[in-house]
């Protein structure tokens, strides 16, 4: 089945130690998104790629970076995690701009900071 896969499902890191979360998709969608979600709140968009074009949200901290080496993979890098970065991180994909097709989400990576 076509899907969005996030690895790992659970990640523990130390305060200030860089961490990378990964996302892959078999849907061949142009757009890939990274969201941060805290305790049953709405997902907060960090950034998204449309093909190789990177779109950062204005309020996303510089501590968060992303890479998309090809259509299938996208990575979220947190350079120096703080306690406030503990959250669920969701990857999603969608087809082209303005489409009526919904987003497809992975099951997320829950990040804990020690």
């Amino acid at each position, binding site marked *: 089945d076509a899907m969005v896969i996030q690895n790992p499902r659970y990640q523990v890191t130390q305060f200030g130690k860089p961490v990378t979360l990964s996302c892959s998709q078999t849907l061949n969608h142009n757009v890939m998104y990274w969201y941060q979600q805290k305790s049953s709140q*709405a997902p907060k968009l960090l950034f998204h790629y*449309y093909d190789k074009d990177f779109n950062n949200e204005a309020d996303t901290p510089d501590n968060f970076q992303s890479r998309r080496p090809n259509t299938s993979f996208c990575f979220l890098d947190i350079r120096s995690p703080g306690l406030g970065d503990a959250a669920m991180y969701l990857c*999603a994909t*969608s087809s082209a701009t*303005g489409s009526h097709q*919904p*987003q497809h989400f*992975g099951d997320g990576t829950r990040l804990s900071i020690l």
Partner: protein
Amino acid sequence: AQSVAQPEDQVNVAEGNPLTVKCTYSVSGNPYLFWYVQYPNRGLQFLLKYITGDNLVKGSYGFEAEFNKSQTSFHLKKPSALVSDSALYFCAVRPRGTGNQFYFGTGTSLTVIP
């Protein structure tokens, strides 16, 4: 500014009773409208969408939603609630034709009481 409102943080309903989860939006144009469900430690799962046409749309797991253009609302409904419907529900809106942004509501936690 674009916004999506879910006025109820929590909805409780008895098993077998009808349920409604409310959503209103303020997004320019005639956006596409979506409902997603999220179970604990999972990503968001697509339930249904409104594109055009009939104001009542049917989706997965017996859910349906009613679009009201004059009230800019898109309420989620189910005629007979199941305990397994207990989850977090998000309304989302995507502008037509331009951009890749999805705007999410704040979420409604649905509890179905046996």
